[in-house]
């Protein structure tokens, strides 16, 4: 499985990759994007099986990325990994077609609980 990680912070992308490994998901191929626009380009070129995306990014936000994908009929599984986790944001995310939202800071256990069903589906 190929997982695309979109976050404007290189440090946070590294933390997400490390946490994936700690959650037992390190055998998957990981690709990175620094904003939603780059992520959209990587979806076309690399065809990831899952997207883990920050919400607030320059150029194109995570929710704009998700809506762009769904508008063109792309149902790729999509999860937010972001610093805000209000009920309003969760509702917006789910209405736009996200599987859910993981708030920062997170633990390997949270990644394992949320992602293992997705990765093994």
């Amino acid at each position, binding site marked *: 499985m190929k997982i695309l990680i979109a976050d404007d*912070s290189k440090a946070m992308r590294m933390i997400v990759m490390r946490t994936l490994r700690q959650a037992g998901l390190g055998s998957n191929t990981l690709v990175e994007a620094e904003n939603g626009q780059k992520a959209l380009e990587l979806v076309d070129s690399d065809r990831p099986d899952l997207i883990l995306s920050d919400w607030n990014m*320059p150029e*194109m936000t995570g929710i704009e990325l998700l809506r762009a994908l769904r508008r063109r009929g792309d149902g790729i599984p999509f999860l937010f990994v972001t610093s*805000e986790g209000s009920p309003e944001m969760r509702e917006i995310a789910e209405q736009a077609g996200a599987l859910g939202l993981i708030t920062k800071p997170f633990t390997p256990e949270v990644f394992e609980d949320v992602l293992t069903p997705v990765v093994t589906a």
Partner: protein
Amino acid sequence: VRTRGGFVAESEALDELFVEVLGSLFNEQAMTIGVGDPRAISGPRAVSRVAVRREADGSHVFVEVRMGVQTAKALAAWMLSVPDPDCLDVLDAVGEVANILAGGVTSLIDGPCQLSLPHAVVAAAGAPDPDGSGVVRRGCVLGQIVELVMRDSGDTSELLWPGGTMEAGR
């Protein structure tokens, strides 16, 4: 600072958030320390700031994180798994601390909010604070002081917002 119950009343929640974020990002034990503790940030400091804008009235709360540059380098080294992070990596790591804390602060504010992107700089030791005082929380991690400052006024001109628009254009 106008929040649900005021930041002073939310001090316990703020302290818990501060310790959780520091502990998680540094991968070390963290604790809050009182105002009477004489320890201070020494030398040049890394400072990052995020603005939280309330959608209801357009007002802002500014969340600022300060730590010594050496502490920031230790943070970046851990986050990026590199022995000697460069300046951009250090600013990126410190910016993410403010970003995550600001995300947590939104849970203490009534109504929907919008976060700016983090803005991080290195400031000389003893540099004046152009925005004055605010609500200050002090934490300790790796034996070093980290400060969380929140205020309801400040300069938004250098901040970028998600999607890339400048504050002035919004």
